[in-house]
């Protein structure tokens, strides 16, 4: 058995201290140690984006990130994203546009969309959205409604 590594980090605005195996992924820590299951496991190798989280302001695949590397950093999951003004706009826009079918990719799409809106703001056009979600696979919708939803959420309401 590997000895555990004790790490402290900010998770959705709250300080957390947990012990993790050195080879554990951030995704496994979130789901199995902490019990936040909004972040999804799908491919496990960085191809699909269902596990996307934001770490220190940048979106990452949590399945590719070692949990021990969260130490001292700020991690935001979909549960934290929906508590932000942009997250609320995204949630409403996904519902309005009908951008959810089976829903498995939705948390990852929303977290990546939050990253895109935070980094590009109102200049986030459809081409930039398509490029920005290249790392997020959806096998139901054909993406059009997801792009519609993110485009709508990128424009703050009057």
């Amino acid at each position, binding site marked *: 058995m*590997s000895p555990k590594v004790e790490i402290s980090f900010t998770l959705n605005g709250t300080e957390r201290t947990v012990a993790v195996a050195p*080879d554990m*992924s951030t995704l496994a820590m979130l789901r199995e140690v902490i019990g936040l299951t909004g972040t999804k496991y799908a491919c496990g190798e960085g191809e699909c984006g269902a596990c996307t989280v934001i770490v220190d302001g940048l979106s990452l695949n949590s399945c590719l990130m070692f949990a021990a*590397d969260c130490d001292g950093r700020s991690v935001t999951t979909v549960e934290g994203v929906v508590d932000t003004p942009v997250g609320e706009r995204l949630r409403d826009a996904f519902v309005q546009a009908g951008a959810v079918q089976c829903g498995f990719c939705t948390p990852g799409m929303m977290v990546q969309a939050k990253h*895109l809106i935070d980094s590009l703001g109102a200049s986030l056009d459809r081409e930039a959205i398509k490029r*920005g979600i290249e790392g997020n696979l959806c096998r139901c919708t054909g993406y059009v409604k997801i792009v519609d939803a993110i485009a709508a959420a990128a424009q703050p309401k009057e």
Partner: protein
Amino acid sequence: MTVDTYVAPKRLDEALEAMRGGRATILAGGTDLMPQSQSGKTPLGRRLVNVRRVAELHGVVLANGALHIGALTTISELMASELVRRHLPILGEACEHFASSQIRNAATLGGNVCNASPAGDTLVPLVALGAAVELASKPNGAVSTRTVPLAEFVVGPGRTRREPMELLTAVLVPLPAAGSVQRFYKFGTRLGLDISAISLGLAAVREGRTLRQVRLALGAVAPTPMRSPGAEAALEGRPLETGVIEAAAAAARDDARPISDVRASAWYRRELVHNMVKRMLTDVAEG
């Protein structure tokens, strides 16, 4: 093997000290290490040394006629670097074609080089630009460094000349001369998250209609990224005319040593090399 020690040093000296015992696995962005360790392809060593907090390994600076790119510079940071954009446009372009937004935010240049994939996206432009890697170790208590040309550093798929106690600290790229011409091309089936069927990188100095100091790098057509000596000789010092371009494209096709795999057959890769070198050089001649 299970990991019995995990360390996350903040200084280079401490990182090299942690690697002295051997059997250490270096963790940076993790984007290759995580799937490779989970699948058993690269089992983790007894010590896991997370170097991501080592301050000396971050940043891009111009010094002594070369760009010094810290090993921990992420692909996203390379794309945002004004120095890379201005002096090494083909490196920036290769980064645009690198995996996805999420992976570019985590993956590091040092990691991409040490992963030594024949299709590694940054390797082809770096070989074309004549890059070298800087390696540091602490064999007898004192830090020692050496520099190895990138084209010699990578020796096979996943294999490099890095010794077990060494850490790749930086990639050094000589500042391209005035009149530098650079081109990059990657062929895959989609723009994002695609592994190259082939990629090409060209760097040269233009004098009128003539190219000098030509380096043509080919990716995913041999066990390592390679240069095409035949194409370089065909181009060097000759005016870029139709016959010269055709000779260079044919020589590049003959130099390539591709295999057939799920992404393309060997024949198709050779034809791609010929056709895309021809297109690239025609574009340079007309530009």
